[in-house]
């Protein structure tokens, strides 16, 4: 299926829930929806267009807000669903109901950006250790790593 056909099908099904849809390069489609319509958008492209394979979820810190990109692929095209998430209230609903394979990526987003994924089947940290400080989210732009001072035992 070519890009134009995909774009029209998405527009027909989601109507005014499509905030923006672009096709900047061949086989790449960027679709922007509100975070409340995320699951609906995903089930639409899954059922109507056969995009079952979620490649990954990318988190972006745009300093005043966050953005999540859900990359989906079928046998030719990639649809990237973009949702904006406010910095004050970083919450997004889980997509594991539609795409069970999304669980590890959602846990990664929780660890790295502190974006809370609602109703996630397994909310434990995936990457950060058990003693990781509360509220430290490494991939946020305001998080800087400082190497702790080294003390050499027996040294000066």
């Amino acid at each position: 299926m070519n890009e134009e056909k995909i774009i029209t099908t998405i527009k027909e099904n989601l109507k005014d829930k499509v905030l923006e849809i672009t096709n900047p390069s061949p086989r790449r489609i960027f679709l922007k929806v509100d975070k409340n319509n995320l699951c609906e958008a995903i089930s639409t492209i899954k059922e109507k267009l056969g995009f079952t394979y979620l490649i990954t979820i990318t988190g972006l810190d745009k300093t005043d807000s966050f953005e999540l990109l859900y990359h989906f692929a079928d046998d030719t095209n990639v649809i990237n669903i973009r949702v904006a998430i406010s910095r004050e209230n970083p919450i997004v609903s889980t997509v594991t109901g539609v795409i069970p394979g999304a669980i590890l990526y959602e846990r990664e987003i929780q660890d790295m950006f502190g974006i809370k994924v609602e109703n996630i089947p397994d909310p434990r940290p995936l990457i950060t250790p058990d003693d990781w400080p509360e509220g430290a989210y490494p991939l946020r732009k305001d998080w800087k790593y400082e190497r702790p001072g080294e003390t050499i035992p027996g040294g000066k």
Partner: protein
Amino acid sequence: MEEFTVPIGPQHPALKEPISLRMTFDGEVVKHVDVRLGYNHRGMEKMAEERSYIQNLYLTERICGICSHSHTTCFAQGVEKLMEIEPPKRGLYIRTLVAEIERVHSHLLWLGVAGHEAGFDTFFMYTWRDREIVMDILESISGNRVHYAINTFGGVRRDISETQKQTILDSLSLLKQRTDYYANIGTTEPTFVARIKGVGKLSKELALSLCAVGPTVRASGIKSDVRKDDPYAVYNELPFEVCTADTGDVLGRVVVRVNELFECYKMIEFMLKNLPAGDIAVKAPRRVKENEVVSRYEAPRGENLHYIKSNGTDKPERLKVRAPTLANYPATVEMLKGCFIADIPLIFAAIDPCICCAERMVELVNDKNGEANIVSFSDLKKLASEQYKKCGNKPEPVSIAKQLEKIRRKS
């Protein structure tokens, strides 16, 4: 029946890299698997934001030791799109050539590991001996055995001479002959096939819903390969087929990888015989204007994805890396459920896990894990063989903790 949890790892599961698998057993049968990551994180995505593009090229090279070329190619072709430059044909051919030779070395390595985990060490030594031929080819092209550093923005860094071409073609005929032999053994040798057939089943539906990638998904009968689906570099000019198997077990994964080896040889031969003349690289700018790109690449283990966002400076705003191993974990958990303890190494090795690929983000961490809880892989193997000796093929619930204690005391 009493169920108990045994943590396997973080030290030495399957491929000598740290990952923690907490498994719940009912007797010999795996009931539940919990994957815990983070033991090999190096903070690469955060680091990338503070380095220039060319520095990042060498950083991405170090995401993985086995498929280092995959990550640089994925990154380079993404950045080239952002820079709006097009590498010359000869450069792209050399880039793809190295990629396919890398696939050969990775698949030969995996075949050996599969043999080793199945207790067939002769196979392991044979394939690894012949892998040396591939490593020599890579060294002759790039000067390095592991991190080839052949890519640069706008093309490749080193050209191939006529004599090199001839040597590669000569080695290739030897490799083909050897691979024929391995294909025969790996798929027909009765004891080996009996060990891997029906182990680690993954149905087509599960593979699809859990978003598995690479040879794992192709062995479940799904024709998914980025080289065909979303052709990059020169793959739309090359003759090759996507190899699949429909058994969905470890045997299927062996068949897929062996067949892929033959496809690789076909492509390498074609590329060497049809190498276009001309430049190998064009000049690339330092600064990149604001844009974003999604770059995909079919690594030996499955699909790589790099999402790169530029902001007009010489450093990326964000680099997101998704390596194939991470995508295969949910499927592996399903494969492991219901299998025997003795099959764990085999199934886990069958996705060809690369932990350093899957993990690349946070600073080095020190997880406070009680040392007494950690089961080494060799202990697990000993335990598995003892268990089987004791009760034949009918596993019965025995206290694993007690047995482990025994093994530990002995060693």
